[in-house]
């Protein structure tokens, strides 16, 4: 058993109001210095390898538990896409060998407690929220679910039907279509890009679900975040009581295929509507990339910082062409994506794309200004205290960093790394990680009403969506 405490000191300094020269009396308001010690999170490991991050808080009689698992579609063959998601859903809906599904639900709902389970591309999550007085009931149900789920056949059928209906409805929502087609081109023949389809979901069997469960829902593949109205010794004894007998069998399977080259180009999806939905970008960085914090600051200035970003200022505020516009670096275990997104009336589709490209190119060649860098860093550092706003967040954040493979002390390193980002760093990572000349463009809309032909940006391939 090991114990680790994280203590770091963040001093949120008074901000320079240089940008507010005209607002003298506002600049005159004193901002007291705020010294904030991020709370320490306890950590212990059960004999079966289960890691628990624990944060006590007695202000309310509640307990929260979040469990993270290394699992997901990345461990599933492409022709079975959706298996992880279904397993996560039926783990919860299918009841346990002791408590049939309907009784399981009645017991939880009766006291207003909740257990959720979901699984995605490369992780699965299980979440419990309960009043302290119902903790034994809630933990015993959660323990049954994780240790001896029943995978009831009817509930499995319902989950499959529901997933098929969701797939049928996917094309109703233009943003969902834009996102899906974008990732298919970015990560072809890989679970990062290839979604579940009617045929992959229909081929999934109940024994495959049970097998998936056995491989991945195990204590040595899990990190938990526990918080609330408990002492450390109560926490440890409860975790041992309910999860101590949970054992790991067999080997965790290897991940499926290696990443392939993106299929860059201009893709158009016809849809009869008065607005175009755009997503433009390319492969980004994985979450262990050493430049991730410099990239965070760079992206804040480019398109991640809301009204402080160049994208929003140029396209929304100055031109009135969009309600939401911005950029994002989405980071995953093995890779990541960079994209700009925007929705604009059909008649300004190409103008919006031109502006996005222009903002990117100018930023790459000129970099940021002193003031932009100052605003970005102040914003990130001053709002950092919101990472510690609730007990469940405090525990979750620590647990997640360990789950993602970061060494202890990452929170402190994150603050230091943000503080250290220089103008030269911003320019360097903009040049290294933004590639406006080699991108995937996905445009969903009605090209008859576009201001110019999309071919301005390259040969257009039309994607027919059923």
């Amino acid at each position, binding site marked *: 058993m090991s114990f680790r405490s994280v203590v770091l000191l963040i001093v*949120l300094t008074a*901000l320079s109001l240089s*940008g507010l020269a*005209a*607002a003298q*009396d*506002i600049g005159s*308001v*004193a*901002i*007291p*210095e*705020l010294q*904030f010690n991020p709370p320490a999170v306890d950590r212990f490991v059960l004999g079966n390898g289960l890691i628990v991050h624990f944060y006590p808080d007695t*202000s*309310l*009689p509640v307990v929260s538990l979040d469990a993270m698992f290394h699992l997901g579609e990345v461990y599933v063959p492409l022709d079975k896409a959706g298996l992880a998601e279904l397993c996560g859903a039926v783990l919860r*809906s299918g009841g346990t060998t002791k408590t049939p599904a*309907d009784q399981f639900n*009645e017991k939880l*709902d*009766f006291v*207003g407690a909740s257990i959720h389970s979901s699984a995605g591309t490369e992780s699965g999550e299980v979440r419990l929220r309960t*009043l302290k*007085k119902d903790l034994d009931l809630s933990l015993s149900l959660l323990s049954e679910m994780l240790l001896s789920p029943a995978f009831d056949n009817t509930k499995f059928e*319902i989950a499959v*039907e*529901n997933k*098929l*209906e969701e797939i049928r*409805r996917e094309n109703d*929502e*233009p943003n969902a279509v834009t996102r899906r087609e974008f990732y298919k081109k970015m990560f072809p023949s890989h679970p990062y890009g290839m979604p579940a389809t009617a045929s992959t979901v229909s081929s999934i069997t109940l024994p495959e679900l049970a097998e998936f469960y056995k491989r991945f829902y195990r204590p040595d593949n899990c990190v938990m975040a526990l918080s609330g109205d408990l002492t450390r010794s109560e926490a440890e004894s409860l975790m041992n009581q309910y999860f101590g007998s949970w054992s790991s069998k067999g080997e965790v399977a290897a991940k499926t295929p290696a990443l392939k080259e993106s299929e860059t180009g201009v893709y158009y999806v016809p849809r*009869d*509507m*008065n*607005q175009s*939905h755009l997503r433009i970008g390319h492969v980004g960085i994985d979450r262990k990339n050493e430049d991730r914090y410099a990239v965070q600051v760079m992206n804040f200035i480019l398109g991640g*910082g809301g*009204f*402080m970003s160049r994208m929003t200022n140029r396209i*929304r*505020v*100055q031109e*009135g*062409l969009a*309600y*939401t516009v911005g950029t994002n670096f989405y980071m995953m275990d093995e890779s990541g994506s960079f994209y700009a997104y925007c*929705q604009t*009336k059909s008649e300004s589709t190409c103008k919006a794309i031109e502006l996005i490209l222009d903002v990117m190119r100018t930023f790459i060649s000129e970099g940021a200004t002193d003031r932009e860098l*100052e*605003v970005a860093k*102040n914003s990130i*550092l*001053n*709002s950092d*205290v*919101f990472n510690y*706003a*609730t007990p469940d967040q405090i525990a979750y954040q620590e647990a997640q960093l360990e789950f993602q493979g970061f060494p202890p002390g990452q929170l402190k390193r994150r603050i230091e790394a943000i503080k250290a980002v220089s103008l030269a760093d911003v320019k360097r990572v903009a040049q290294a990680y933004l590639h406006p000349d080699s991108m995937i463009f996905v445009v969903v809309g009605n090209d008859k009403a576009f201001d110019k032909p999309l071919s301005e940006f390259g040969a257009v391939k039309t994607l027919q969506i059923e």
Partner: protein
Amino acid sequence: MFWFLVSFFALVSAAAAETSDIKLDVKEHVLSNGMTLVLVERHTAPVFYSMMYFKVGSANEVGGNIGSAHLLEHMMFKGTRKIGTSNWDKESALMDIEDRLYDKLYRLKGDMEDERVRRSIAGSNVSDDSSQMKVVLDSIVQIETALNDVIVPNQLEELYTENGGYDFNAHTGYDITSYQVAFPKNRLELIMMVEAERLRHPVFREFYSERDVVAEERRLSVDTQAPAKLFEQLIATTFVAHPYQIFWEWGSEVADLTRGEISDFFKTYYAPNRTVLAIVGDIDANETIKMAEKYFGDIPAQAPPKRIESVEPVQNGEKRVEVVFDAEPAIEIAYHKTAFDDPEDAVFNVITAILSRGRTSRFYKGLVEGKRLALAVDVSQFPWGDVGTLYPNVLVIDAQPKAPATVEQLEAAVYEELEKLKTTPVDSLELEKIKNNLVSDFIWGLYDGLGLADRLAQSQTIAGDWKYLGFLRERMSSVTAADIMRVARQYFTKENRTVAVLVPAKKES
């Protein structure tokens, strides 16, 4: 100045006894101009959450100013005479010219349209003389270029963001408009001053480009979204007289709103006597009241605006509407119901929970898992609010059939569940579950500072008293099986409902 120490559990069931030691300490204070503060000290994290509510929403858009409440919400982020400009006097003069030019532009457009109609009736060729128009458009470009030299864009957002502002947003409702911000605790006085400045001297700069942003928001949130398109028609069909009938501004009217109209709307409805400021967090309540007196105290109160006189007439028969859209089928059903102050409103809250809350709800167990007809069946109230709405609203059932089930099958199954409420008393365990959930909701509701500030401000604004939240809970916990049967029989009738069906557009082949 008043102190309130209230336990919401006095009348709640046995399960609540174990948690009756949880209290919500709220400090309430009314400034001399009528602005109300509702404060909760919570020292668990060095932050505060602020919710500012104004008693105005799109229901107040009476008399041809549809879209005003929403456009005003956007304009409130454009700064003040001190924030957002490098030269307020010069900017103010330029904005006057800009307004006159746009006014001229509208008149010209109107004249040209009249002329076009006149000529086409007369059979003569339509040849627009647009030279005058060009002069005006060129002048607009010139003025806006000059304005860009004095405007400091996004300065308010910069101030919020750089100071660690978190989750800042605004929402235009039907009875209310709300502004939310959260900051590290050491920014409290700064934010008080800025918020007061926004109420004292807001400047609606970049007005004409922001109108385009609002139009784009409609395309994003309604025009391209099947559920919203369907819902818009459901509501427009349900209400014939009451201004709740407009789900979202239709779009065309916004292009005609002027800066002068928005300024008038602001002056009338954002008066301090219609303002509630709720703050939850690591604050000292007495110090916060002193700051509020200092910064907001001298903003003058305003005479109350025109009341909403339209009363929705009783519906005398089922109404149905179809929306053809490129999407899978869906159905939405609305029943007229009560306003917040009707005791039956609490019964509807309990019915909503029985029908749709969680996996053990009747719709989920019966239609999603039991008959396997639906992907989802949700129940909500429109307009929605934690304490209800100022005027009678509707209960909405929203369902998506799961193929091969049809909308017709699903609709029939929904009515079957509603009939059960009329004929069979809800059993005591089911009612006890709802009451237990009231307790756990209350406790978890204290966990989230922003949500708590929101509910307190909402209750104070709609009901005139933040304690109404507790009264409503008590009302809900005393709802009986007989109450549910009586209300179901009275309201879930064919005559009282409106049904909207989404019909998939035929695909071009």
